[in-house]
């Protein structure tokens, strides 16, 4: 092995570079898989959003309300009528709150002694039935109904990971009973937290939009309403949208309020995830491409290397080495080469992580994430080298030693 030191150094440098790239790929793929495996934190099966709107002044049917209360009362009547439909299990009205919607509101929520002035959080304004519609659960196992009651009383419920990014606190459970300050002025009490809601299927709950809070909605947000969302009973999805729209102009108009259209959350989900899907697909295509290429390269290199050693292999066989001896020897050489670059590779991997070139997942350096990526890269390299040596070596050994030596 030492006899070939010059060629081996080149080979080592190549292995080093390739293993760093493999680490980089493994790191990215780890992030994708880990993100996809996080629980969504909500459920939109059998859910629909009714786009409820108000007539414009130009409409012949426009009615001028005397007070906001009247306007609000009409909306609540509409919600009651929707809830009264036999297919509907639960209904809620909200502002910038439903899953898969691109509009966000943010606000500052200080919890206990942690000031969040530089880390505003998503705020979802909802009525207490929101939890039932989207099956959101409390961190302590509170049911949707219990969360609704707490929201009515306490006005704000933050997600359990509200302090995770800012202060590294994984759960708020220990802090129940402490004070919270909303928007720098309203003092409230922390009574419960909910299991984090993902922003979309491809965004981790550890990201900026992974922490959020619910605020009890009120009449001030009538103009910013995104609609009334409903959960339909399990076996009653069929023709729900058509039937509802058929009734929209007859039964579902109250005052200025009307139902403009109905979207299923399956549709909203596809639309909203589209860019993320495309992005993830690109990452995976590039990763696969590089893997194939690296495999071809390593296979090719070791193939030729081993072929060139036909004569040596033949000589060893003549001098009495068994096939498995030779295998062990030349595969071992490849793996020793790999082992010798591994420490350097790990240092470079660490530097890449340290200087934030790798993918972000709950921080750049996270021990499990790092170790899994390093290990995955190493195993892949070892496998490729093994395959790249095994086949040509077997071929070299299958011909008789005399023939091999003559062929040279």
């Amino acid at each position, binding site marked *: 092995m030492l006899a070939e030191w010059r*060629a081996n150094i080149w080979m080592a440098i*190549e292995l080093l570079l390739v293993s760093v790239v493999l680490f980089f790929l493994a790191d990215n793929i780890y992030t994708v898989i880990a993100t996809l495996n996080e629980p969504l934190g909500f459920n939109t099966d059998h859910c629909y959003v009714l786009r409820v709107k108000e*007539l*414009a002044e130009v409409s012949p049917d426009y009615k001028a309300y005397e007070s906001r209360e009247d306007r609000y009362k009409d909306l609540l009547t509409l919600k009651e009528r929707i809830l009264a439909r036999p297919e509907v299990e639960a209904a809620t009205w909200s502002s910038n709150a439903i899953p898969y919607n691109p509009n966000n509101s943010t606000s500052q929520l200080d919890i206990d002694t942690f000031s969040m002035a530089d880390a505003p959080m998503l705020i979802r304004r909802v009525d207490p039935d929101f939890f039932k519609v989207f099956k959101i659960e409390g961190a302590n196992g509170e049911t949707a109904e219990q969360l609704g009651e707490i929201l009515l009383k306490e006005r704000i419920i933050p997600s359990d990971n509200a302090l995770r990014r800012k202060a590294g606190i994984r759960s708020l459970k220990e802090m129940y009973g402490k004070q919270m300050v909303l928007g720098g002025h309203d003092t409230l009490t922390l009574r419960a937290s909910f299991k984090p809601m993902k922003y979309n299927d491809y965004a981790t709950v550890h990201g900026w939009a992974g922490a959020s809070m619910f605020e009890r909605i009120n009449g001030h947000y009538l103009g910013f309403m995104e609609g009334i969302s409903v959960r339909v009973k399990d076996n009653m999805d069929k023709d729900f949208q058509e039937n509802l729209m058929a009734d929209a102009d007859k039964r579902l108009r109250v005052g200025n309020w009307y139902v*403009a259209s109905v979207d299923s959350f399956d549709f909203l989900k596809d639309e909203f995830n*589209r860019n993320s899907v495309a992005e993830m697909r690109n990452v995976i295509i590039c990763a696969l*491409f590089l893997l194939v*290429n690296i495999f071809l*390269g390593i296979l090719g290199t070791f193939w*030729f290397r081993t072929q060139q050693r036909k004569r040596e292999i033949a000589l060893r066989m003549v001098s009495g080495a068994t096939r498995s001896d030779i295998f062990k020897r030349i595969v071992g050489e490849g793996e020793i080469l790999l082992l010798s670059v591994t420490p350097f590779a790990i240092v470079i991997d660490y530097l890449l992580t340290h200087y934030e070139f790798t993918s972000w997942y709950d921080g750049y350096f996270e021990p499990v994430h790092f170790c899994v990526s390093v290990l995955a890269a190493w195993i892949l390299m070892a496998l490729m080298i093994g395959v790249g040596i095994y086949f040509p070596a077997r071929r070299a050994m299958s011909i008789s030693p005399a023939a091999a030596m003559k062929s040279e």
Partner: protein
Amino acid sequence: MTTMKTKNRYFKQAWGSLKKQPLLSIVSIAGTALAIFLIMIIVMIDEVKVAPFAPESNRERWLVQTGASIGNKEWGSTPDNKSSNGGMSYELIRRTFYEMKLPIAASAFTWSNMESHLSVPGKIPFGARRKDTDHGFWKVMDFTFITGHPFEEADVESGRQVAVINETLARKLFDTTDCEGREFSIDHVPYRVCGVVRDVSNLTTHADADLWVPLTSNGTDKFTWCTYMGSLSCIIVAPSKADFPAVREEYNKVWDKFESEAGEAGWEFYRRQRPYDQFTAVNTSASNMEPDMAGVRRHNFLVYAILLLIPAINLSSMTQSRLRHRREEIGVRRAFGATRMAIMSEIFIESLIITIIAGLIGLLLSIAFIFLGGKSVLAGGADVTGLSLGMVFNFRVFGISLLFCFLMNLISATVPSWQASRTNIVNSLTGEKK
């Protein structure tokens, strides 16, 4: 004549030696072809967002401002903190963009489409995506009218209830596209169809909707928040890309004047390098951030570099193995009087052949990929009406990748062959490296 013959001979020799080692030649070609294929696909994925195609035919010469950033002295606003970011009001657009003289067209329109309630007697009402625009929209965008015509300045000024609808919607409402003048109701307000246009791809994000109505016909022009903000975006079209500096200069002048007037009530605007060209616009998703184009370019460069370098490193180490194999051959030929030049030229031509074959395969692969349902792959499942391969195909990038692969093939072949042709002929003959 002689040189032609010599060149021919080089080609034959190079081809011969490629054929002699089919496995290696195939692997080299496959590696290079894959690299070119992937780079072309990635570039095309990006190109879809910036290449001009109808109705956004003016993408190359327009400047986009989807929103503005406002603050107030009383809030203690700074560009990074306590600013409000979002759509603009019609008033603001009138006092800034409409005041500009250089642009050949300007349009105010709602950036996100509104879900609207549509109905005609005898049919179940349904929802459709509505965009509120001014008359300039039809000059900025390049729609194909099947019947009728766009709404005009007079319609916008008087807030007339007229609508342009797309052909799918026309069929859904009236079972025909020949429906100019027919009435239907949008959000319980009666409207009349003034034109029907061909459907467009939802990749043309600024133009796409199911129906377009004057922004004055439903009160969108009067909607405001923070005095100057609203729900509108604006696009201005410069005579050509070369006029961007002049247009920006005029933009800054107009905004300086406007801002000083608004500043009297404490309002401040943060321009964040607006308005954006199409490339900047698609890479700046949030209106509360400065565009980071250097970062985007760095990222793209890194991706291309990795995609080209890894195959290159692999190829070169394989070529090296191969040439070590050929040391003996080179030795023999040198012994029989071949000049170093002759051997080097052959290696040069060999690399050229590999690169050209690989380039062609990569090119054909990428084109085949796009044709075989790849179009929607490009656009992440979006529909691709009106998009053709020619629009997203980038010859410059193809040329650059090809050149790069050629250089890598060449370098990886030249260095060892140079060494081989230099070494003592006897050593070369024994195949030993010394």
